[in-house]
C-alpha cells in the first residue's frame, strides 16, 4: 500500500511572530522551522500502517522554498521511504487551493491509496488544504482523526474522529484522505540510524511544469497582517475576602460582561 503524507514546514511553536516591513508577511529572520506538529501525527500514523501491514511505501510531500528540504529530511529520518519537494517560484504566492491543486496532481502521479495530512498547519491555521485536496481528487475525506483501521484487503478504512463528548466513526472506501488530530498517536523520535540514513534516501524535486499545467493565480490575497494588541495587564483586587469577592463578581458582570 502506498501512503502519501503531505507536510508543511512552519515556524517553531515558540517563535515570537513579527510582521515584516511589507505589512503582508511575517519576518522570517532567526526563525527555527519545524514540521507542523499535526503533520507529524500523520507521518507517524503512516509509518505505523506500513509496519503493521509489513509492506508498503510512505512518501512525504511538501510544497515550499528550498528550506523545506530540511523538513522533508526529518520525515525521512523518522522512517519515510522517500520524499517529493514541490519547489518552484511559480508557487511562491500559492494559496490553499493552488497548494491543493499541486498536491492533488502529485497524488495522482504517484497513484497513492491513502493520503494522510495534519488537521491544519499551525502557522496560519487555515485547515483547508485537506478538504480541497479530497474534493479535487473526488476522494472521501475525514477530518480530526483519532483512530483508524484499514481492513485486511486494503479496500476501506474505518476512521474515528473527535466530536464533542465522543467519537464519530466512519467507513471510507479507499483511496481516501484522512487528517490527523492530536491524540492519534505519539510521534517517534528519529533514531540516530534513521538520521544517518536519511541522506541516502531520495528527495525528488518537482516544478510546476512537471505536474503538467500552469499554476492558476491564487484566489486569495493577503491584504495585511496585524499584530495582536498587547494583552491588558491583570488586575489584583485588594481588600479583605468578602469585599474583594463582591468586587470580583461586580467586575466580572459589569466590566468584563463574563457572567
Amino acid at each position: 500500500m502506498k501512503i502519501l503524507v503531505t507536510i508543511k514546514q512552519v515556524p517553531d511553536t515558540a517563535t515570537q511572530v513579527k510582521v515584516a516591513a511589507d505589512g503582508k508577511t511575517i519576518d522570517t529572520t532567526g526563525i527555527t522551522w519545524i514540521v507542523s506538529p499535526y503533520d507529524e501525527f500523520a507521518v507517524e500514523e503512516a509509518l505505523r500502517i506500513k509496519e503493521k501491514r509489513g509492506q508498503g511505501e510512505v512518501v512525504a510531500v511538501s510544497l515550499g522554498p528550498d528550506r523545506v528540504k530540511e523538513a522533508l529530511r526529518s520525515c525521512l529520518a523518522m522512517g519515510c521511504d522517500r520524499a517529493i519537494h514541490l519547489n518552484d517560484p511559480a508557487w511562491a504566492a500559492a494559496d490553499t487551493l493552488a497548494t491543493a491543486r499541486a498536491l492533488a496532481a502529485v497524488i495522482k502521479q504517484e497513484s497513492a491509496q491513502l493520503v494522510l495530512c495534519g488537521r491544519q498547519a499551525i502557522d496560519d491555521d487555515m485547515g483547508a488544504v485537506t478538504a480541497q485536496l479530497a474534493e479535487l481528487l473526488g476522494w472521501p475525506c475525514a477530518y480530526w482523526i483519532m483512530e483508524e483501521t484499514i481492513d485486511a484487503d486494503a479496500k476501506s478504512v474505518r476512521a474515528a474522529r473527535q466530536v464533542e463528548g465522543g467519537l464519530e466513526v466512519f467507513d471510507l472506501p479507499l483511496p481516501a484522505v484522512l487528517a490527523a488530530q492530536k491524540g492519534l498517536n505519539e510521534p517517534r523520535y528519529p533514531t540516530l540510524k534513521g538520521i544517518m540514513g536519511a541522506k541516502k534516501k531520495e528527495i525528488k524535486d518537482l516544478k510546476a511544469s512537471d505536474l503538467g499545467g500552469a499554476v492558476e493565480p491564487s484566489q486569495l490575497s493577503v491584504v495585511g497582517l496585524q499584530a495582536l494588541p498587547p494583552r491588558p495587564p491583570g488586575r489584583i483586587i485588594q481588600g479583605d475576602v468578602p469585599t474583594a469577592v463582591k468586587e470580583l463578581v461586580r467586575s466580572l458582570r459589569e466590566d468584563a460582561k463574563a457572567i
Partner: protein
Amino acid sequence: MKLELNAEQQMIQTMAREFADSAIKPIAAEIDRDARFPHETVKRMGELGLMGIAVREQWGGSGADAVSYVVALEEIARACASHAVVMSVNNSLYGDPLLRYGTDAQRERFLKPVASGHALACFALSEPQAGSDATNQATLAVRDGADYIVNGRKRFITTGRESTFALVFCQTDRSLGYRGISAFLVEKGTPGFTVGKIEDKLGIRASDTAELIFEGCRVPAANRVGEEGQGFTIAMTAIDGGRIGIAAQAVGIATGAYERSVAYARERRAFGVPIGQHQMVQWMLADMATAIDGARLLTLRAATLKDSGRPYRTAAAMAKLFASETAMKVATDAIQVHGGYGFIKEYEVERAFRDAKITQLYEGTSQIQKLVIARDLLGDHDGRA
C-alpha cells in the same frame, strides 16, 4: 572556518534535546533523590542509538561522528548529568577502545550488544591507591594456560553494578611498571567477579559508582584487548576521548543551570524591578553565557580534531579543564542568581551545583588536566597522563 553543525548533527541535537526534555527532565530530580538507576530511559537511549554513537553500524552502533556525540551528550546532560555519564562511559571509555583495539570476535561478542543499547558496560581502571596515578595498578592478571587469573579490586567504577561487561586493567608484569599493564574484557557472572560497595555520592546520584572485586577470576586469554603491556596506552587513549565527553557533560550541566537563571532573572522581582535589571545580576549572567560558549567551542574543537584524525589529547584536556571549571562556576552563580531559593532542592540549580563537582574530578582531576597540557607545551611525550 565554518562554525556550523551539518544537517545530521543538527537533527541529532534536536532529537536528543526533545527526548531529554520530554523523557529525562521530568524524572531527574526524583532519581537524584532516590539514587535510582533510570533503566527505562537508558534503554530508550539505546533504542535511539545514543549508546554507541560513533561505533560503526557493522558493530551495532550509529556510525555518526564525535561532534554528533558531543552535541547529543550536552543535551542529555542539560536535563540530567547522571544519564550523561552513563552514556559517556558506554561510548567513550568502552565503545571507542573496543572499536579501535578489539578483534572482530571481541567486537561481535562484547561491542555489538553494548553499542546497540542492549547491554551496558564499564571501564575499570581506578583502584584505592591508583586514582590520579593510574600507573600504580595492584590488580594482577597471571597467565595460566589459555587463561589469566585475575585478583584485585577496582574502585569508583561508573555503571559497575548495572553493566554486563567490564573493560578491566590489570598488571600482567609488575616489573615493567605501567608498560606491564594489560586490558581484559570480563563478563558479569564470571566466577570470581563480584560487585562490592556502592558509593553514596554528592552528585550524579542516579549513576551507580561501584567497587568491582576479582578473586581468582578466570578470564580467557581471548578476552585480552590488544597485546600484553598495551593496556595503559589503551586506557589513556580511551580517556582522551572520554574527556571530550565529560567536557560536553559539563557544558550541558552549565547550560541547564544558566537557562534556569535567565528565566528566573526575568521573573523574580526585587526593589521594584525584575532582578535581571540589576547590573550585578546581569554581570553574572553575561559571565555565565560567555564561559559556556567558550567551553562549548573548545569541546567542539576537540571533537572536530578527533573526527579529522588529528591529535586531540591536549585539546581534549583543555576542553575538559575549562568546561568543568565553567560548570562549577556557573552552577555556583546560578544559585546566587536564585538567591535563597537556589539553595532549595525544588529549584533544581542545587542539583546542577552538586553534579558539576564530579566533572572536575573524574577522567583526571583539573590538576591532572593541567599536567597533561603543560607536558605537551614543554615537549614531554612519554604517553603517561
